């Protein structure tokens, strides 16, 4: 799972507001707010970056111990992927397409 590529679902609306990211899942109207670290993971989830690579960036940018960053990043990504907000794939994803949901993913997990 840590080698999976992470992308943003096209079925959401999102905006950075005062250090947070606000994400609206369009189909369900569920609203999520991400803190600074979560917002950075959201930015990094461009479909060409893996969970491992994201964890490394979090480790470097937020002075989080590498094993902790790895676990936290994986848990965060899996949780949002379960909600359909992030997409996980064995292969790079087409970034920021807006056809929505798992249709963006190849071999979605």
């Amino acid at each position, binding site marked *: 799972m840590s080698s999976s590529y992470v992308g943003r679902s*096209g*079925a*959401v*609306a*999102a*905006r*950075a*507001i*005062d250090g*947070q990211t*606000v994400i*609206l899942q*369009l*189909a369900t*109207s*569920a*609203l*999520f*707010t991400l803190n600074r670290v979560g917002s950075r993971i959201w930015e990094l989830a461009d479909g060409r970056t893996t969970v491992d690579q994201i964890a490394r960036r979090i480790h470097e940018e937020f002075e989080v111990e590498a094993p902790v960053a790895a676990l936290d990043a994986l848990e965060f990504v899996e949780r949002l992927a379960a909600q359909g907000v992030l997409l996980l794939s064995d292969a790079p994803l087409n970034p*920021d397409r*807006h*056809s*929505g949901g798992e249709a963006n993913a190849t071999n979605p997990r």
Partner: protein
Amino acid sequence: MPQILDEVCEKAARQRIPLTVHLDLTWRCNAHCIHCYLPDHGAGEMTTAQVLRLIEELAGAGTLFLLISGGEALLRPDLFEILERARALSFAVVLKTNGTLIDDHAAGRLAGLSLYRLDVSLYSHRAEVHDAITRLPGSWQRSVRAIQRLTAAGLKVRVVNVLMKANIGDAAAAHEFARSLGASYTLDPTVTPRLDGDRTVTNLGLDLDELRSALSDPFLAGVMRDLCEAHGLPQAVRDGPLCSAGHYSCYVSPSGELFPCIQLPLSCGSVCEPGFKQAWGSQDMEAIRALRLNDLRDCQGCALLATCTRCPGLALMEGDLAGKSTLDCLKATALATVISPA
């Protein structure tokens, strides 16, 4: 979601972030609704480039919810280009339309854009009542067909109705009809004066007895109660903003004028020149932001505050921003006799 949304709205208001923007793209419409708030001949429309620049600026300013309307927005040949750009910029886009121009092809294109919702105007479950309001023969049939196409394509559709003398008897059946089409529904008993200040359209709205009668519909009573609750407790309101207008929401006319709200026709400058940021931060907008209940002379000590939706824009259109809005007084009086105070 409501609690998170409330927190986001509060933060946006504190930070002067235009979280919600209503953008009308055109004055033109193929219908001629008797109650329309737009003047017949508005002055100019923003070009495609100006609209695209505006929505880029809005994305940077923190706008998340973008309501696109008109006139009839589908009359703009560049509508899909604008919608595609808005989605690429990750807005939650609501498109408000009369639906009459949405064929299978258009419904398919809209479905591919992951819009948040389609709002379709429908004033009755009866074609003759709806068509008499739109003054466009056959419009009911076309709008209903559009709703069916859109829901079949997987889009969320909300039927938007305005309660007037012309359709007062149809409110409950219209709600049921919307449900049968797979759409959600909203109903507003406010006929908004025209943007150019012409108030004659408000004569189409309900009088006190008609409002009281209409409020026997639990759905409408619930909508109105929610609106009152959104205004908070009277004491809190005295020290807080009167409404979202200018705090975290605003309206942009087809020609690019910025207003605090569609119901508050106080131009705060052009979003084209010098730009949205300057108009949003203008002195006129700041004056609206500074308004508090304590500033509304005629409302001090009013026993109807708990059932009042106090719209400063409606008051302005009666001549005084800090005066009474008789339309709201009417609604508050009717509500007070029907529902328990918030």
